[in-house]
């Protein structure tokens, strides 16, 4: 599903050039659950942003579903992204002004799904995440675990092929964290590819494969059994 080759990304300020990704190569197959680990500043988030087409690489190739996207402009990337990729963040990133229902509905609005269909699909996914009873609440009225479940609901409502999760349990206690990991595992078992950045060895154990990064390069790959 994903194949990147010799990917490079620099950050420049006026005097300093920082290399975030240094000729990084890797691939992820459809249906995999991959964890990316590494210390702060190793390039994990940069990699996730490029994989999610939020950012573009300076050099190298990124093939997504057999399409070379490294040189895509923002509009094309956005189009590809909204139909194929769902995001889950450490800090949930729900919109405070919108209710649970409306937050989950948002991606469907932007992909032009009809109103009746939207209601059906949002209710379906809220039901699955067991937060249907909170549908008219605002994010601030929910616990962290509930918020993350809303975020996951939003990530999957469009039935994406790939979910990118950036430390999804980072802001949660261990019990809520385990619930979130179970949810992701379920999704993966139903066929969704998942790439997750994490600091937690415990969470990483839910994955099939761990990619360890250091200074913008792959240093080790563990296959989980």
């Amino acid at each position, binding site marked *: 599903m994903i194949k990147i080759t010799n990917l490079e990304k620099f950050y420049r300020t006026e005097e300093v050039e920082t290399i975030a990704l240094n000729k990084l190569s890797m691939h992820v197959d459809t249906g995999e659950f991959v964890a990316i680990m590494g210390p702060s500043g190793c390039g994990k988030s940069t990699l996730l*942003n490029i994989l*999610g087409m*939020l*950012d573009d690489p300076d050099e190298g190739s990124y093939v997504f579903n057999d399409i070379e996207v490294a040189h895509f402009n*923002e*509009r094309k990337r*956005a189009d590809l*992204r*909204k*139909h194929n990729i769902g*995001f889950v963040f450490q800090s949930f*990133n*729900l*919109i*405070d*002004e*919108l209710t649970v229902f409306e937050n989950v509905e*948002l*991606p469907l*609005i*932007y*992909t032009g799904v009809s109103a009746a269909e939207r209601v059906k699909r949002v209710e379906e996914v809220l039901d699955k995440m067991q937060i249907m009873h909170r549908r008219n609440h605002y994010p601030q009225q929910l616990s962290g675990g509930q918020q993350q479940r809303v975020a996951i609901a*939003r990530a999957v409502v*469009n039935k994406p092929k790939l979910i990118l999760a950036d430390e999804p349990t980072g802001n949660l206690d261990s019990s809520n964290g385990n619930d979130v990991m179970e949810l992701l595992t379920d999704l993966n078992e139903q066929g969704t590819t998942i790439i997750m950045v994490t600091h937690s060895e415990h969470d990483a154990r839910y994955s099939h494969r761990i990619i360890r990064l250091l200074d913008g390069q792959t240093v080790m790959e563990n296959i989980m059994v």
Partner: protein
Amino acid sequence: MLKNYFKTAWRSFWKHRSTGFINIAGLSVGMAAAVLIFIWVHNEFTFDDDQPDAENVYRITSHLAISKNETWVWESAPYQLGLEAKKTMPEVVAVTRVLPFHWEPMYLSINNEFFKEENAAYIDESWFNVFKTNFVSGNAIAFNQNPFSIILSESKAKKYFANQDAVGKIIRIDSANYQVQAVVKDAPANSSFKFDLFIPIAARQADAQEKKNDMSWGNFSYITFLKFKPGTNIKQATENLKSIIKPHRDKNDNLNITLRNLKAMHFESDLQNSGLVHAEKKVVYIFVILGALLLIIACINYVNLTTARASLRAKEVSIKKIVGAGRGHLFNQFVAESAVISVLALVLTVIIVSAALPSFNSFTNRNFSLTTGSAYLWLIMIGTLLLTIILNSIYPAVLLSSFKPLSAFRGGSVMKIKDTSLRKGLVVLQFTFSIFLIIGVITIYKQLSFVQSQNPGYDRSQIMSFNLSWKLLKGMKDDQKAAVKSTLKQAILQEPFVNGVSLVGMESIQSNGSFSSGSADWEGRPKDFNPSITYFNVDGDYNKLVNINFTSGRWFFPGSVDKRNVIINETAAKQFNLHKPYVGQRFIAQGDTGVVVGVVKDFNFQSMHAKITPVVFKLDQQWSSNYLVKVAPHKQAQAIARMESIWKQNFPDQPFSYQFLDQEFDKIYREDAKASTLMSGFAVVAIIISCLGLFGLAAFTAEQRGKEIGIRKVLGASIAGLVSLLSVEFVVLVLVALVIAAPLAYWLMNLWLQNFAYRISMQWWIFMAAGFVAVLIAFATVGLQTIKAAMANPVKSLRSE
């Protein structure tokens, strides 16, 4: 989708309602000012537009060259010219004439009660054929058949006869009875003909003497309109008119005739005077600019506050982009937000406008209303709304929707230098406008108080004046007239509370600027030197009332010793180049050979717009009809009551009407006072709007620099130090605005001061004062926010990173 935009927009507004209300308040104040101005401007540009066939209606204009450099232009023509044109020019479909009754007020007597009517006119029988008029009751046929008829406007009919039908009622004017034959709708706000009362010209010409006067080819009294067949060659028609009038004029006189289209009349600027409604095009353009500026200033607030808050919304924008929103979606959303704010502002605008309309009407002397036949008014409102939405939404929407989702997550640095400097530029623009207006207000105020405090060179306090209308003495022989006038003077002098009476020829001491030339001679006058002279025809008591200062010589002696002698002012002595000593020089004035018996110090006998020109005082009572009465201090009411009863005994058919010279003096600066009021109004609006913007911006800056403030505080910065750190930025903006506004104001206000012959100079302290006021206002606005920020607990701001 649309519903979603407005739902989100409404929630976003509600969540940030304090900023929202700042936006709405500023916008609606600006929009209301702009709407009022645009209503007026629209009205000025559509004068007489709704007259049918306006393009075929022309007015005869007369140009008379009185010297090489001076031509008098009149809107009127001889009565006979219209008659002849109708008879001999086949291209003329209709001719109509009007004689506005504007040189003195008309007094109506209704059930023995007097009413003063300012907007009366004599019209001929074709008037209502040429000019569309809506009759409420009655018709023009009866009006045209009977000379002693009246047509009233609806509002005056209501005023005089309440709810009764006015048609058939009798109104007495002077000593004749007139019958109301019809009531017509009030003239619309964009009509040149604001008449409330019409009388047939036939009524005036029922008097044989009047008719004889009117039929003279030298009497240019009648405003004459010609309606032509469509497609008429106006140049040829003008030539035809000239050939009609030519045989009736001197061979060598310099009369020229032109035709002016009805629609071109409103902005005429070359007329000597006018009985119709006119305006200056320049003034209208200035108001268009002011209106647009006020609206822009108000929109700047929205743009600034919205873009300033952009970083706070960066997260929302980023999330939406990540879950699939395109730029178009976000752009539309921000336009929707601006639309929500603007529509709310429009609601408030309508409330402000309708509340302000009555005073606006009396100020502009027009008759606007929000309800009656005002589709254009709503168009103006909607237009203003759309303009506001466009001004408000384009830049913020482009900016906000252009965020890269990543940069938003990476931290607050969304807004880099480029944008903040634009925002500062806009604040500078707002304050430049405000400071300019403040300087304008100070300058106008200083000039007006200069004018009012300036010693005019004579005493005008406690002097009331009233006029003996020529109509009251009609038909009397000269000696009879003199007897009536002198009896009245003696009667008044007998009254208690009266300290002196003088009978004079001019309206009041402010001579209305009537000049004559070629009527004086003295030793050494070059043959071709005929300066304009203002004659003060006075009696011997005049100077007891007004106490003019003398530089040499004396006032006239009582009796008739000085009958042929004159007193002149300093300017006259200098301009005439009289031999010294001035007193005793031979002087011939209006055919009387005498000597100069005195020279008075120059005094401002006109408004200070005009330079002091030569004045000659003469003892001459023949045409005098104005009584000046010096009243004892604190006895005004009693004196007026006594005066009125004397008047009633002598002239029961005419109401007693009087003025005090002080008030007359204030009246000549009425237009200037209006300019001052207007300027203050604009200044207040501009300052309110600018401060609202500054307030919001300061709040935002304080919020954004929270971390910096926290760090500085931890490191030991004092609260005072922090407040000045935060405020200084805004004060600098205001100072930059001052630097831009000062030369601009210097230039424009000097142009305005050129209108005065006697004026103040623009001193440095005016600019300092305006700058000081602006800085003070800015500091007061910003201060509260910065103090709040400086007092905040640093732990809070540092943790929230």
